[in-house]
C-alpha cells in the first residue's frame, strides 16, 4: 500500500529569473520502505523532500498522504498533517536549546494534546530508551555529542508515531561511527516498525543500505541511475 504518492509534482520559483526546483516528478513510497533520494548539489533533493513533507506547496501536480489528496489543503491543515503523520530529521539536530532532551522529545505530543502529562513523559522516555539515550533525558542539547543529539532528534520525529519519517542529510554532520548508527536506526524503523523512511543524502555508503534509491538530476528523476 503506498503511503506517499506524488504525481507530476512541479515546484517553480517565480521571480526575475524563474527557477524550476522540482520538475514533473511522480513517485510512490510504500509503508515499511527505506528510500534514499540522491543527487548532486542543486539537483532539487531537498526541495522534493520539503514537498513530500508538506513544508512547501507544489506549483502543480498532486500529492497523496495516507490516501488523502493533500494538494489543496491550507497552511493550518498541512500543519495538522505534519503533526500527526510526519516526522522530520534534519542535518543539524535543531533541538530547542532551552529545553531538556525529554522536553524536546515530548514537544510534538504536547502540541497534539492527546496524552496526559504522565503518559507523554513515559512515551518520551521509552523513545529515548529505544534509541539508547534515555540516560541523557534531563540534560540540555548542548551537553550532548552530535550523534546523541541526532538520536534525540529522531526520537522527537517519532513522538506522535508518524507514518513517514523524512530525513534531510541525517548523517551529514556526524562522524562515521555515529552516522552508521543513525543509518541503522532509520533502516530498522522502516523494516521493523513499518514506517516509510525517506532520506535525502549524498553519502553513497548511507544510500547503499536503502531499499530503493531515487537519483535526481536538475529536478528530474534519472531512471537509469535510480
Amino acid at each position: 500500500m503506498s503511503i506517499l504518492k506524488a504525481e507530476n509534482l512541479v515546484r517553480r520559483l517565480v521571480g526575475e529569473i524563474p527557477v524550476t526546483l522540482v520538475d514533473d516528478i511522480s513517485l510512490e513510497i510504500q509503508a515499511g520502505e527505506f528510500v534514499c533520494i540522491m543527487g548532486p548539489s542543486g539537483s532539487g533533493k531537498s526541495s522534493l523532500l520539503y514537498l513530500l513533507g508538506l513544508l512547501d506547496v507544489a506549483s502543480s501536480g498532486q500529492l497523496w498522504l495516507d490516501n488523502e489528496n493533500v494538494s489543496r489543503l491550507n497552511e493550518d491543515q498541512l500543519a495538522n498533517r505534519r503533526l500527526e503523520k510526519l516526522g522530520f530529521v534534519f542535518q543539524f539536530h535543531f533541538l530547542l536549546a532551552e529545553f531538556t532532551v525529554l522536553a524536546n522529545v515530548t514537544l510534538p505530543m504536547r502540541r497534539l494534546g492527546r496524552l496526559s502529562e504522565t503518559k507523554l513523559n513515559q512515551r518520551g522516555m521509552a523513545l529515548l530508551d529505544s534509541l539508547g539515550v534515555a540516560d541523557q533525558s534531563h540534560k540540555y542539547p548542548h551537553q550532548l555529542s552530535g550523534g546523541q543529539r541526532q538520536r534525540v532528534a529522531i526520537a522527537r520525529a517519532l513522538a506522535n508515531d508518524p507514518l513517514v519519517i523524512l530525513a534531510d542529510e541525517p548523517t551529514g554532520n556526524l562522524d562515521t561511527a555515529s552516522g552508521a548508527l543513525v543509518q541503522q536506526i532509520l533502516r530498522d524503523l522502516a523494516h521493523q516498525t513499518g514506517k516509510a523512511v525517506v532520506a535525502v543524502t549524498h553519502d553513497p555508503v548511507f544510500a547503499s543500505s536503502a531499499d530503493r534509491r531515487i537519483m535526481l538530476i536538475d529536478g528530474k528523476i534519472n531512471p537509469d541511475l535510480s
Partner: protein
Amino acid sequence: MPIQLQIALTHLTSRKRQTLVSLSGVVLGVAFFLAVSALMRGSEQDFIKRLVDNSPHITVYDEYRHPQIQPAQLRWPDGAVHIQHLTPKTEVRGIRSYREKLALIETLPGLRIAPVLIGPVVLSFAGRDQAGSLSGIIPSKMKTVSTIQEKMQQGSLDALTANPNGIIIGRGLSDKFQIGLGRNLSVATQDGGSRVMKVVGIFRTGNAIYDESQSFANLKRAQVMFDRPNRINRFIIQLDDPYQARDIAHRIETAIAYKATSWTEASEDILSLLTVRNIIMFSVVLAILIVASFGIYNTLSTIVIEKTRDIAILKSMGFHANDIRLIFLFEGSIIGAIGSVFGLLLGAGLMHILSTIEVKPPGVTEKAFLPIWWGIEQFELAVLFALSSCILAAYLPARRAGKVHPVEILRGA
C-alpha cells in the same frame, strides 16, 4: 500549562537580563503613571473642592435669563409679534415671595439652601472708608452651605443671631482699619441710610479682595438697611454631589423662573483649564508607556530573530502560525502582567511618599499635605494601559514570527 505558554516562559527566563530591562520599563511606566496621575487628580480635586466649597454649587439670582413674555405674544403664538420701547416695571428688586420658593427648592433631595440678601455698602471707621458688599444671612442656614464658619478667626456666625446689630468682617478689613472684636463701625447703604454696627466676628479666607470687602450681617437687619423687607436676592445652594449642579440648577430654574447658575457654569473657564491639564498629564504618561513598550518590542524582536530556526522547526513539527504568534503575545502579556503588578506596588509606594510631603496653602492654619488621589480607577487605567501597550508591542514581532516560512530557514541553515 499550554505548550505555547511554556515556550514563552522559557524564552523569557533564558534571557533574564533583557527580560528585566523590559520589565523595569513597564514597572517604571506604571509607577510614574500612578504617581503623576494621583498627584494631578489629587490636586484637581483639591482645587475643585476649594472652588466648590468656597463658592456656592448653585446660586439663584433675582434675575431672569430671558425677558418676560408679553401678553401679545401669548395671544398670537404663531404671529410675528414685534414690540417696541418696552420698559420693565419698576419694582422692589429681589426674589418675590422667597419663603414659598425656599420651601419648594428644599423639597429637592440632596441639597442645602440658604437665603441671602446682598447689597453694596460703604464701611467707615476713624475717617477711612471701604466699599464692599454686605450679605444678610440666617446664620443657622448659612453654616450648612458655606465654609465661612470654618474660616472664622474670632467670634462666630451665631453671634449675629445673638446681637442683631452685629457685623462680621474679614481679616483684611480689620487690618486696614486696625479694628478688633467689639468695636463699632459705620455702615452706609446706597440710598444714604447709615448705621453703626458692632464687630462680632473676623474671618480669613486667604482671598485678599474677599477678606477686605465682604461683610456679613443678620438677614432681618440687612432687609431693613437695604429697605427691602421680606425680600432676598440670592439663594445659595450646596449639594451632596456637586457634579449634579448643572441638572439641579436647570430644574430649579424651570420651577421658579429665576436664573439659577451652577458652579460648573460659573467656572467653565477654570474647568476647561483642568481638561487641558488632564490631556497634558495623559500625554506625558502615555509617552512613558510608549517608551516602555519600545523596550518590549525590542526584546521580542531580538528573540524572534534569534529564534527563527526554532520557529521554523516548530512549524515543521506541525505548529500553526497562530501557535507561534501566541508564544510571542504570551511573552508580551507576561511582561505586561508582571510589570503591572510591580508597577502598582512601586506606584503606591511613590504615592505614599508624595502624600507625606507637607505644603502650606494660604488661609489654612492646620498642617496640609500634597493632595494625593487614591481612586481605584487610576490603578485600573494603569494596568489597562500597560497591558495593552505590551500586547501591542508584542504584536508586530509575533506577526513576523508567524510568517516565518520553515523551508526558507531550513534551506539556509
